[in-house]
């Protein structure tokens, strides 16, 4: 395409646009950074009077550390369970062999479309009846709602991108479908499986709505901890926690930007 000749107006506009995007995107995140190191900040000074790592070091002990390790444990269990359960569904869907196909797949997309909170509130009522409210298994179950949806869709895309020719070749040599799947299809789909696992893990680590309702009052993960701190005007603690919560996602964006396909990225919008 013919590149337009740069006019003065165009260049000024371009610079203004770049500056505006920079301020709008980075500004709120920079405030978090400032608050996280502000040991003393009295209004209306534009900068903290005293900066230090006091609140960061507090992150490494006591309640926040417990919330972090508990969140990582829950996310790990959720990821393993979601992937193990989603692989058969995704493979059958990719090969169009899912019984009651469209109906079953609809079940795996509707949680994305409905507002989460009323459904989770209703699930909390059920979980109370089943003694799952306020327990780690209850929180894992609620994280599996989003986790299964993400896993099924990313894995279906991954399996579908592997053409049936290789599978047919293996089957012509006498391998069963199941053997072919484990020896041919699954290894080839490994990049997609890894992307799916990362997505489910991040979803669980960042999940707030369900954890707040189902986990209360005994299961506190990092997002719930951050919410409590922010509402209690412990802005430093909340800001440190917020930055810690952002780390995995931003690292992923920096490392994998080129490898993450647009349809995976679209899922992150729902975190």
């Amino acid at each position, binding site marked *: *395409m013919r590149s337009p000749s740069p006019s003065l107006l165009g260049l000024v506009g*371009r610079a203004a646009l770049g500056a505006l*995007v920079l301020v709008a*995107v980075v500004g*709120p*995140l920079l*405030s*978090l950074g400032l608050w996280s190191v502000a040991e003393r900040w009295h209004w*209306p000074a*534009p900068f903290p009077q005293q900066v230090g790592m006091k609140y960061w070091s507090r992150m490494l002990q006591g309640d926040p550390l417990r919330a972090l390790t508990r969140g990582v444990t829950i996310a790990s269990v959720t990821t393993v369970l979601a992937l193990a*359960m*989603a692989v*058969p*569904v995704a*493979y*059958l869907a990719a090969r169009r*062999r*899912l019984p009651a196909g*469209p109906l*079953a797949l*609809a*079940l795996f*997309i509707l*949680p*994305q*479309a*409905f*507002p989460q*909170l*009323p*459904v989770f*509130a*209703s*699930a909390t*009522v*059920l979980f109370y009846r089943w003694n799952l409210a306020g327990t780690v298994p209850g929180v894992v*179950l609620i994280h*599996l*709602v989003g986790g*299964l949806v993400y896993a*099924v869709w990313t894995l279906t895309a991954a399996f579908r991108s592997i053409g049936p020719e290789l599978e047919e070749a293996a089957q012509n040599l006498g391998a069963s*479908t*199941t053997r072919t799947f484990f020896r041919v299809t699954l290894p080839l789909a490994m990049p997609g499986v890894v992307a799916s696992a990362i997505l489910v893990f991040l979803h669980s680590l960042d999940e*707030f*709505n369900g954890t707040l*309702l189902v986990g209360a009052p005994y299961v506190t993960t990092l*997002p719930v901890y*951050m*919410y409590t701190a922010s*509402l209690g005007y412990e*802005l430093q603690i909340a*800001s440190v926690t917020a930055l810690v919560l*952002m780390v995995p*996602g931003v690292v*992923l*964006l920096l490392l994998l*930007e080129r490898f993450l396909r647009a349809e995976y*990225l679209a899922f992150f*919008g729902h*975190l």
Partner: protein
Amino acid sequence: MNRWERWGWTLAALPAVLVLLVTFGLPLAQSLAASFVRDGRPTLENYALVYRLYRQDVLYTLGVAAAGVLLTFACGIHLAGYFRLRAWPWVEFLLKVPLFVPFVVTGHAMRVFLQPSGTLSLALGALGLVAPGTRLGLGEGWLGLVLALTWKHLALVVLLLVGAFRAVDDSYLEAAQGFGAGYLRQTWAVLVPMSATPLALACVLTLTSMLGSFSIPLLMSRGSGPQMLMIDLYYRFGQHGDFGVASALGVISYVLASGAVYAYLRSVAR
């Protein structure tokens, strides 16, 4: 795939379906049913209470979501059109960052940034753009909420729109350029009409997400004045223990989200 394998695979697929039925399907059905029951009797009283107590909040929620969608797409269309016509990778990358910032973190960041004594007031005061010590009241009302929701949703909208705009063939844009169309004309007269379907889809998804937003308003609201629907639902459920009215609020949000349900189901049917 022989008969035994077919049975085996179907059996292996069953747990995922069962888990979603128990954690999503059953609660959804229960909330629909509970919205029509009060004190053990079938009734419309929950809806009457919603009308009496929350009708302003329903309108407020619709207004905030509509304003958010307008602002998001006013920015998103122009940005995506700009990136399509004049590539600018690092700004495009920068705009993707909020995609990876969880909703609840966005809520807290915007609270710190926009509240009256927040960092935006301080920065503008330090730069001399407002009198030092001015407390801008952006963060606590509807405008702050709209700005925060836009900040979070713009990333996904730009991502979807850039994808759609890149699918438009260069020859159309070159033809428009030949007639002297500039950036704005090319965006609005070529790119937007040729991407009508993905644009409408992105619009419906953004609207639903904003209508159902919970953690951002939860962290930004000051507890008085009109509230978003999900905040009402949370307090009705958590503090009043009134599952009936909470469910009625939920059913209203399902109805408002029906556009997204339709769009998603159509994408499955394809």
